[in-house]
């Protein structure tokens, strides 16, 4: 499956895009997605380690199993307020 990953703030700048199409095997977790993102966007790897991943608008653990219909986003440390 291929998931579109939304990117924000410094993560968007480092990846050079607000959205990235990331190919994954049919059975894949958030951890697999992190590894694939770091491989495809080496500049993003450092910030990715300090970032959360959101699946369908909730924070998700690395063990979370992804499906093709999921909305996925990298959430760098937030700084609202």
């Amino acid at each position, binding site marked *: 499956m291929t998931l579109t990953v*939304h990117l*924000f*703030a*410094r993560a968007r*700048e480092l990846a050079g895009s607000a959205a990235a199409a990331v190919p994954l095997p049919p059975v894949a977790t958030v951890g697999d997605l992190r590894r694939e993102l770091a491989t495809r966007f080496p500049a993003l790897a450092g*910030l990715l380690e*300090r*970032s*959360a991943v*959101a699946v369908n*608008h*909730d*924070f*998700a*653990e*690395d063990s*979370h199993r992804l499906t093709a219909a999921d*909305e996925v*986003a990298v*959430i*760098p*440390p*937030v*700084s*609202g*307020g």
Partner: protein
Amino acid sequence: MIRLTHDPIDYAALTEAVRSPRCGAVALFLGTVRDLTGEFVTVALDYEAYGPMAEKKLAEIEAEVRRRWPVGGVALVHRLGRLAVGEVSVAVAVSCPHRAEAFDACRFAVDTLKELVPIWKRENAPDGTGEWVHQSAPPPANREA
């Protein structure tokens, strides 16, 4: 109510909106753009949000505030886009029967917003350079308000 907006926040109207006859206390918090962070001079901030998730997390915070305190009205509004020094970036207004709970509920809402809601600021210096602020620790997975 919760809202993300690119327009200036009318915090007087927001404060009026949460007032209630059964509430003798209204607490209002405003976050405003500061000109100095340590030695770093800021002329403007750019705010960016992951809109759908930010709205969901703000709604969760409102629900949790209503669950924990005897709230009459609660409003959380965050501004997006470019803000000059002195402008209001966030407003939280809460009414409760008594002041202690209004202060506590308002503080909880602001603190949780800053911890959980996917909004980011970029600090812009006078020389045109800027940096995204990514200092906080990531929230634990499955963290809800």
